[in-house]
């Protein structure tokens, strides 16, 4: 039993897979952190990621290049985010319901658009990302192949996490975003345009969620399958909470969820007798416990989920 476990946890394959599974979560959670810090919650992340997955796949298919596909995917995510932004900022509708509506609508829309364009024939394999080993860094024992022999999107995400952390804590804009999420009225009173800041954060979130979506269609599977994001948009919401709204911690939390997914797959394959569902449910249990326990010291933005209406 211990041999099996150690085989499980100390194999490069497993760790590399964990990173691979974690990075779309990390990318989307960075986006969601920025949006939530500004006070807007995106239940519709799942929809944005799906849009990104389809957009990325279609971009790669018609334009022949995965990087162009990435741009298309990001744009798709941003468009969905713009709709959400309009509904919850300008129209001041409920953020949760808007997000849920977008999820439902996009699940249908992505299916529909894919089928309408590609019909029911065999799924096309599109231009995609291959793992690229970073010279020197990928030679470091253990850490090297795990972290530095991945698709370029993963490296992009590493950079993203760092940029986001710096952005929030050390730039003027980051301060404004935080202010808008904590106390929009006070921010307004010093001349900050609450709705402009919020629009920007939501669209940035859409761009990053779109990018997260392309991980699936241009990174793991090289095509588009209906519902391929498999509920990970909701996991991102959990990641953000466990990470206490910090980008670097979100990367770590994403690794945990990614590892859980990898463990789940492994257990399924190995038929060990431990239910894989436990592994997959564990991150949610953890999130719940963390949320209940954190409550007092949580850094949840005070104005999260509330519409700001100037009178």
């Amino acid at each position, binding site marked *: 039993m211990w041999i099996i476990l150690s085989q499980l946890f100390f194999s490069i394959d497993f760790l590399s897979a964990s990173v691979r599974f974690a990075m779309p979560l990390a990318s989307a959670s960075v986006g969601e952190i920025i949006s939530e810090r500004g006070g807007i*919650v995106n*239940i519709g992340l799942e929809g944005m990621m799906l849009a990104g997955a389809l957009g990325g796949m279609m971009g790669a298919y018609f334009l022949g290049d995965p990087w162009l596909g990435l741009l298309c995917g990001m744009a798709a995510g941003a468009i969905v985010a713009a*709709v959400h932004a309009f*509904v919850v900022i*300008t*129209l*001041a*509708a*409920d953020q*949760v*319901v*808007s997000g*849920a*509506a*977008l*999820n*439902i*609508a*996009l*699940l*249908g*829309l*992505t*299916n*529909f*658009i*894919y*089928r*309408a364009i590609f019909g029911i024939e065999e799924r096309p394999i599109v231009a995609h990302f291959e793992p690229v080993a970073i010279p020197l860094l990928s030679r470091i024992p253990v850490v090297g192949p795990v972290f530095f022999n991945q698709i370029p999107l993963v490296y992009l995400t590493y950079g993203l996490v760092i940029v986001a952390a710096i952005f929030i804590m050390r730039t003027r804009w980051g301060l404004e975003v935080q202010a808008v999420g904590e106390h929009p009225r006070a921010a307004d009173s010093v001349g900050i345009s609450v709705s402009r800041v919020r629009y920007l954060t939501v669209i940035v979130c859409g761009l990053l969620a779109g990018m997260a979506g392309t991980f699936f269609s241009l990174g793991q599977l090289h095509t588009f399958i*209906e519902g391929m994001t498999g*509920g990970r948009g*909701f996991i991102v*919401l*959990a990641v953000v*909470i466990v990470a206490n709204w910090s980008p670097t911690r979100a990367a770590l939390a994403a690794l945990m969820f990614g590892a859980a997914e990898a463990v789940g797959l492994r257990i399924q394959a190995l038929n060990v007798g431990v*239910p894989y*569902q*436990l592994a*997959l*449910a564990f991150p*949610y*249990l953890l*999130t*719940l416990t963390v*949320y*209940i326990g954190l*409550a007092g010291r949580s850094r949840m933005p005070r104005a999260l*989920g509330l519409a700001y*209406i100037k009178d």
Partner: protein
Amino acid sequence: MFRDLLHQAFAPRSRQLQSLILPLAAVLAALVVGGVMISLAGFKPLQIYAWMLDAAAGTPQGLGVSVTNAIPLILAGLGVALPFRCGLLNIGGEGQIYIGALFATLVGLSLHGLPIYVHLPLALLAGFIGGGIWGAIPGYLRASRGLNEIIVTIMLNYIGFWIISFLVHGPMKDPESYGYSWTMKVPVSAQLPFIIRVARLNLGIVVALLAAGVTHYLLWHTVPGFEMRAVGAGSQTARFAGIRVGRSTVLSMFIGGGLAGLAGTSVILGVQYRLSDFFSPGYGFTAIAVALVGQTSPLGVVFAGLFFGGLQNGVNSAQRSLGIPMGVALSLQGLILLFMIAGQSLTLIRWLRKKRTARRVDYSQPAVLLD
């Protein structure tokens, strides 16, 4: 008495018309967008819609499928509508559906030799309690510690799902099922029987309609129901008047969860007869659309549920027979919901009001009561 029903089902007089117009307008807008989508895919929208209408309501069999589809939607929609009246958004429907279905299946499978009029109600009750517990948890956390019920319910959705998944792939799995992972069939004494054979319509619709009636009665004719509505209408005033806000919160989430649990139960005991982990195509989320389109009143939820059930039926049929791409039903559902909340937007209403002069109703005549 019926007039009171109508009064209460559709908001005060001056808004009666508005509460009918908005859902219709939202549906119309979504159908227009859907029509554009369909025509871009190379089909004729009006032809498709006509087919859908015929499939959903044109034949007894079609009607039966529509209504059968509506059963879990009505129940889960009530499960969203009731807590909504208490000021809470219950998006934990998925988890409550699964846990409710689990409890019902357990009672169904573990009791033997009971007549149907004992076994079935017990199973239904179990389903209600299971969903109720799953709903009471976030309710309690919110009431006692102010924890946001959105986050808790989303987590519980997944935990609930994975519990069922584990059980049906593992300890509860039917040893004779090969490809699928599901439990053994529940005995006939726990199944919802057909009431209209030709349409394959099961007793679940009666359960759903009864549930709607009971929900209505609870909200408008009982003390706890009134307290829930008071809390939803103004929790500060309610507290000032002495109402225990926390208790109403937990109670509304318990009942709401229970109704969602019944939704899951109705699918297991009425259609599938076995528990599996793939029986809910997102009922918990569609329920939100059903509840809001139905203006969160039990009567409205029934109509909205029937509508969405018919929509699902029509779309499935059109997909099968006419070959329109899949995804139309979900797209329409999502669009309807989006247009609904956009239409209810306060800022939009304010903006529209600025364009027209506000019509203040003149109540200066003496108090001659017209009731």
